[in-house]
């Protein structure tokens, strides 16, 4: 059942893999130097020549690329090929500034699709499966990316896109979807809507797997999804700059497999820029090894994770990253303390008395930052006793304090009152910026 899409590459001995990466890095550096005035200038400023890059470990001689570089060269200033090579654009939403435009050659699309074909195969999907793609289609990479990957492995694609939830659930039943790809928060919403329609995802559909990503989520949410719907929930990772969604966990659910022949990943200390030891938390830095319209050299993606170079028990030799803790952009600083929404989520999802949706509100009262967390009550645990409700909100506050080290006000709200999202959920409302 759990097969390999590309066994020769996926199980390649580590030394051979490193040699392949070194070779691809050398040609990439030569290529961007010859094709991009941006990178030529960067290399000059850093005092590095293409010939200085001889082996994989020389990667640290190369300068970093930042999100601000993408904005400053908007729309296509960092492309390495003329537009007539480009077969598709995707454009990121640009919530914090100008959007980012990504261009793909036909080869770049094929590389992206290959990456997802390996990933989908590694969670046990194949020709027999019906994969419902409920990520948004269009400028966002999620829908089309998964669509192509699913077709490549011979699965049947049900391209519902995001939204129109009741119809999605009907189609899921009528056409027998066995897997779904969407944001974890949208799937939780879908489960609620299904229940209201009298449909049990566990008993009334054939769904067995979910590919969830595009927003940070936690193992506790995974547990909730798996226990309430009976499916296996897999984490998927990738950003629009890198192509889109690219990598997933394998069926063992123990870290996301990063295809090392396609991408070179480093985890660095964001303060010093030095690589951290294996197993230490740091910021992810990406170099694309087989992407040509819009390649990236040591791009500071901003996601916080841990790298694991141990080969996986599934037989794949490629490195893994642990679940993304959050993006440096998502991090909120409350009274000088760094808080990732995913930390809050992992606390909340451990408490059975509260619902699946939450919202963090940061505000300023006088000179002080105040953080409050809205959580929904659940029908099954609602007690008529005020004392029980008070003690529930105290418990939530105490557990949050234990993890975050700051005091948060906990507000119990009625079910269904926190806004549901079809795509990326808005977990944080920061009123200080207004």
């Amino acid at each position, binding site marked *: 059942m759990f097969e390999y899409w590309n066994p020769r590459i996926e199980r390649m001995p580590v030394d051979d893999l490193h040699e392949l990466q070194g070779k691809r890095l050398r040609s990439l550096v030569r290529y961007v130097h010859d094709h991009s005035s941006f990178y030529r200038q960067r290399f000059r400023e850093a005092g590095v020549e293409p010939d200085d890059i001889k082996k994989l470990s020389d990667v640290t001689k190369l300068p970093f690329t930042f999100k601000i570089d993408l904005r400053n060269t908007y729309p296509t200033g960092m492309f390495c090929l003329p537009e007539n090579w480009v077969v598709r654009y995707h454009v990121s939403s640009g919530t914090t500034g100008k959007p980012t435009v990504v261009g793909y050659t036909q080869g770049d699309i094929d590389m992206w699709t290959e990456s997802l074909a390996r990933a989908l195969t590694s969670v046990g999907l194949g020709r027999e499966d019906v994969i419902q793609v409920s990520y948004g289609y269009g400028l966002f990479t999620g829908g089309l990316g998964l669509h192509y990957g699913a077709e490549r492995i011979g699965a049947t694609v049900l391209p519902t896109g995001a939204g129109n939830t009741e119809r999605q659930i009907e189609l899921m039943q009528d056409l027998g979807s066995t897997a779904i790809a969407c944001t974890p928060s949208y799937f939780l919403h879908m489960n609620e809507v299904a229940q209201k329609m009298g449909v049990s995802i566990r008993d009334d559909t054939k769904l067995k797997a979910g590919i969830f990503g595009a927003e940070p989520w936690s193992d506790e949410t995974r547990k909730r999804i798996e226990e309430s719907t009976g499916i296996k929930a897999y984490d998927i990772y990738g950003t629009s700059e890198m192509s889109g969604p690219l990598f997933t966990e394998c069926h063992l659910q123990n870290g996301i497999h990063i295809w090392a022949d396609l991408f070179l990943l480093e985890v660095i200390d964001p303060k010093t820029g030095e690589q951290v030891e294996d197993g230490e938390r740091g910021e992810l830095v990406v170099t694309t090894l087989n992407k040509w319209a819009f390649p990236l050299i040591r791009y500071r993606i901003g996601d916080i994770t841990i790298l694991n170079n141990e080969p996986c028990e599934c037989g794949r030799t490629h490195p893994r990253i642990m679940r993304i803790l959050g993006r440096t952009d998502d991090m909120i600083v409350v009274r000088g303390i760094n808080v990732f929404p995913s930390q809050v989520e992992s606390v909340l999802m451990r408490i059975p008395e509260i619902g699946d949706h939450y919202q963090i509100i940061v505000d300023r009262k006088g000179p002080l930052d105040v953080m409050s967390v809205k959580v929904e*009550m659940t*029908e099954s645990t*609602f*007690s*008529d*006793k*005020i004392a029980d*409700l*008070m003690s529930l909100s105290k418990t939530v506050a105490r557990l949050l304090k234990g993890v975050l080290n700051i005091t948060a006000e906990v*507000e*119990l*709200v*009625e*079910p*269904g*009152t926190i806004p549901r999202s079809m795509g990326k959920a808005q977990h944080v409302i920061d009123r200080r910026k207004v």
Partner: protein
Amino acid sequence: MAAIKQISIFAENKPGRMAGVAKALGDAGVNIRALTIAEAGDFGVIRMVVDDTERGYTALREKGFMVSETDVLAVEIKDVPGGLYEIANSLGMNNVNVEYAYAFVTAKAERAMLILRVDDVKRAAEVLSEAGVRIATKGEIQQI
């Protein structure tokens, strides 16, 4: 069993919530017999006894309210000084704890009724009956 069902509703403490509850019941043709609100900062619990619990419960749920049912006792209080003492004392002497209570007067103002939430409903019903206190049944509450 002498206990009747009380409806409890979780409500955020914000304008319009009470109206929402009242409208849902009114539209369903459910009449409220007695009501009390316990508030605790951001939220509160609305507790009520209605003529048709089943219908009230369903109507509120359909409107998305979080509702639960709780067993309470509806007992008659003699409309004379010391009426409440008699009830409270019998419960106290028999180690039954009253968690909360609220009273109402019936439409014809013939009787006062006390809704009691106690830690041991069965025991409370026994000791009150022994003391000669009348406990209203579901049917009686419906017909008041």
